[in-house]
C-alpha cells in the first residue's frame, strides 16, 4: 500500500508564468481539481480550483487607465507555495490521514524536489474499492461478530474453509468490546453459509441490523 503504486504519474502541470485563465481551462478540460506548479522540473507550488474561484471573488486589479487586469494574472501570484507533499514510498494510510486531517483534495508526490506524481482522494477510494473488492462479480458481503480472541477468527476461517467457500476479502474492526468481521464471500448460497455459521455458534446479524 504505497503511494507510488496508486498515484497518477506524470500529472498535468502549469508553470508560474502561465495565466490563471489557462490554468482554469486545463482544470475544465481534464475534469480535475489540482494542478502542481512546476518550474525548471521542480515543484514550485500547487493551484486548485478553489484558488481560482477565490481569485474571481477578489477586487480585480486595474491598470493605470482603470481597466481590469484579470486576464493577465499569473499562476505564480495565486498558487500555494508551502505545499504538503508525499514521497512514492510513503504509505496510502499516511496520505489518507493527511488528506482527511488537513482537508486536502490532493497531494503532489515528489522525489527530492522533482515532481513525479499526484495522489488524490479519488485514488485512495479506488484503493479501498479494490482492497475490499466492492466492485466486480461474484462476491457477497456478510458480517460476523466475534469475541476479541484470535481463536474465534481462526475458527471462522476454518468453518468457511471446510465449506470450500472462497473468502474474497476480510476486514476486522473493533466493535464495542468485540470484533466485527466484514467478509466478501464467493457463493450464491449465502443463506446456507449464514445458517452453517450460526449453527457453529457465530453471531451473524440480520441484514441492516448492524452498522446501518
Amino acid at each position: 500500500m504505497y503511494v507510488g503504486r496508486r498515484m497518477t504519474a506524470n500529472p498535468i502541470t502549469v508553470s508560474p508564468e502561465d495565466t490563471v485563465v489557462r490554468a482554469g481551462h486545463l482544470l475544465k478540460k481534464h475534469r480535475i481539481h489540482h494542478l502542481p506548479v512546476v518550474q525548471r522540473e521542480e515543484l514550485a507550488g500547487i493551484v486548485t480550483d478553489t484558488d481560482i474561484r477565490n481569485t474571481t471573488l477578489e477586487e480585480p486589479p486595474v491598470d493605470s487607465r482603470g481597466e481590469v487586469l484579470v486576464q493577465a494574472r499569473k499562476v505564480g501570484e495565486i498558487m500555494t507555495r508551502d505545499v504538503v507533499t508525499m514521497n512514492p514510498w510513503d504509505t496510502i494510510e499516511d496520505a489518507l490521514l493527511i488528506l482527511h486531517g488537513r482537508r486536502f483534495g490532493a497531494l503532489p508526490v515528489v522525489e527530492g524536489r522533482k515532481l513525479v506524481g499526484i495522489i488524490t482522494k479519488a485514488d485512495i477510494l479506488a484503493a479501498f474499492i479494490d482492497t475490499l473488492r466492492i466492485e466486480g462479480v461474484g462476491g457477497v458481503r456478510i458480517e460476523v461478530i466475534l469475541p476479541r480472541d484470535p481463536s474465534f477468527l481462526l475458527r471462522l476461517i476454518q468453518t468457511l474453509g471446510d465449506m470450500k467457500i472462497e473468502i474474497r476479502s476480510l476486514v476486522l474492526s473493533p466493535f464495542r468490546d468485540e470484533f466485527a468481521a466484514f467478509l466478501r464471500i464467493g457463493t450464491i448460497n449465502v443463506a446456507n453459509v449464514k445458517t452453517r455459521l450460526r449453527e457453529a455458534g457465530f453471531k451473524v446479524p440480520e441484514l441492516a441490523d448492524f452498522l446501518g
Partner: protein
Amino acid sequence: MAQRKENPLFGKMTFAHPLPQQKIEEGFAILIGENRLFGAELNPDIIKKEGEKRKFLVSRLPSRKKLISRWSRLFRDLVSPADFFELVSPKFQELEHRENILLVGKDRVIYDTQIFHGSEPVGEMTLFFHSVMNRNLGLLAYLRGERLRIVYIDHIRLLEQTSGYASALFRYYEKLFHDIGFHQFRLSASLSVGKYYWAKEGFDCSDRDAFRRMKEGLREFVKERGLPVEEIDINRLQRACDIASFRRDLKVPAYRNPEGYYALDEDEEHRDRQMFPLGKAFLLSSKPWDGYKIIYTNTPKKTGLIYSPEYLNHRPRTGHPENRRRLSKLLEAIRKDDLQGSLVFLEPYLPEMRFLEMVHPAGYLDAFRNGVRSGGKTFATVDCSISEASYDVALLAAGGVMAGVDAVLNGRVENIFCAVRPPGHHAGRESAMGFCFLNNVAVGALYARGVYGVQKIFILDWDVHHGNGTQEIFEEDPLTFFCSIHEHPTFCFPGTGRRMERGKGEGYGTTLNLPVKPHTADREFLDLFEREIIPEIETFRPDLIMVSAGFDAHRDDPIADLELTERSFVHMTQRIGEMADRYCQGRIVSVLEGGYNGSSLTSSAIAHLKTLQGRS
C-alpha cells in the same frame, strides 16, 4: 325424418348458454321417435378378445332421468340431442351419414354411422364423446363440469378415393367440437385413414415415449439408407406433424400391399413401389400409434411449455439448492393441474455448437465439456457442482430456449415457458458461476436474431439475483435491452447490478439495473416495475420479449431476502403480456432461472404460466 331440418344451421348456432331442460327433453324425444337413440353397454367378450379396446353394444335406453343427467354432464346443456345429432352428421362432397345412431352409455355418448355415396356404402365411423377428470381439481370443480372433454375417434374406415372427405369432415368437426367446448381429439392412428394423414392433420403421439421411439425409428432408417439428412434436423422434430412434413424435398420409396398398407422394405406382400417424401413414406409405414390433438383450450392464449425429463439428470451434490426436485415437483404439479390439458408441451433439442458459439467461445465450451467428462465434482467455482450428465443437460437447456424461440416465432404457440435447468443468467461468455454454465437466454436471443431475423429484443430478468452474465454479453449491444430487477448488490450475490451500470459503448442506455433493498415486498417492488420498466419497454418497442424468470424473490425462498408473493409474478407477467401484445404479436419466451423453495417455485411458476395463458 321429415320434421328435422335438411341442413344444419351450424353457422347461425351459438353454444354460449345452456338450454332449458325442456329443450333437451324435446331433443331426446325427437331422436327416440326416429329410432336413433339407444343405450350402450360395455361388451365384456370383446374386451377380452381385443385387449384394451373398449367395445360397446347397443342396449336398452337408460331412464329419462339418467339420460338428462348424462347429457348435461357431458354437453353442459349447450346443445340439444337432436341438434347435436344433426350437426355431427353433415353432408360433404355428396357423402352422407346413414344408419347413424346415438348411444348413451354410463360414461360416454357414442355416435355410430355408415357413410354412403349415393346408394353405395363407402365407409363407417364411430366417435366416443366422454370426459376425464382433471386430477386434483377437486369435487367442486368436477361438479361445475370442469373436466377435460374428449372426442375419441374410435373407428373410421373410408374407401381410398374419399380421403379428401376426411379432411373436410374433420376440419368441420374441429370447429364444431371446439365451439361445444371439447378440448381434445384422440385416436389410435392405425386405421385405414392413415397414420400419415393424422400426423399431417396435427395429431401428435399421446405418449412422449412413443414419439421418441418414432423419432428413433426415423433416425435408424436414415442411417441405414445413408440418406443425406443431418442428425440435428432429426433432433429438432418435436411432434408427429413435424415428421409428416419432414424433408418434402427428399423422395424415398415405400411399398404398398393389396390392402393398402405400406412398408419401407419390399417383400412378398408389399410389392407396389411408390415414391413419397421422406416423412410421409416413414409415417405411412410406421407402427400404429395413439394420438391426440388439442382443439380447444379454455385459455385466451396458446401457451407452450418446454420440458424434458433429461433436465433431471444434472445432479449437483447432495444438499445443493439447484437440485432436480425443483423441476420434478413443478412438473408433477402441472400434470395434476388443468394446465396439463391446456398447455402445448414441447421438447428441447441438442443445439448445434455454432449457435452456442454465438455466446460462448469454443475454448470455454471445451473446458466445460472436459471438466464434466473428466469426472470433476465442480466446474469453475464451488457453487457450480456437476455430475456426469451436466454438460449434456446444460446444452439441452440452451436448446430448450432455442426450441421455445422456434415455437413462438413459427406461431405454434403465442408465448412459452421453458422449464429448463441448469439456469443460465450468471454465466458470462467465459465464466460459470452461481449454478449457471451456459447463458440459456442469451443463446435463445442470438438464435432468434440469427435465424429468424428478430431485431430488437427486450430481456427482463426478475430473478432475485442480478443477471450479470446476460448483462456482460449484451452491454455493448443497442438492439438487446437488458433490464434486471434484483436485490441490492451490497446485500446479495453476485455483487453487481448497481444503478450506474447502464451499458457500454453503443449499448449505453440499453442496460437498466434496478436494485431493491432487502425485505422489499410486492407493493414497493411493483411500483418500481411500473415506474421504471414499463416506460422503457414502451420506448424500446421490442420485437420479442424474453424473461429470465427466477422465482427466488418469493418470500418463502431461502436464498435471498425479498418478500414477494405470487402476486408480483402475476402482475409482471400480465403487464409484459400487454406490452408484447402491443409491440410484438404477443411473443414472449420466458425461461426459468432460480427458485429454490419447492413449493413457492411451483406455485409461482404455475401462476406465471396461467397468466401467460391470459387467465386472470
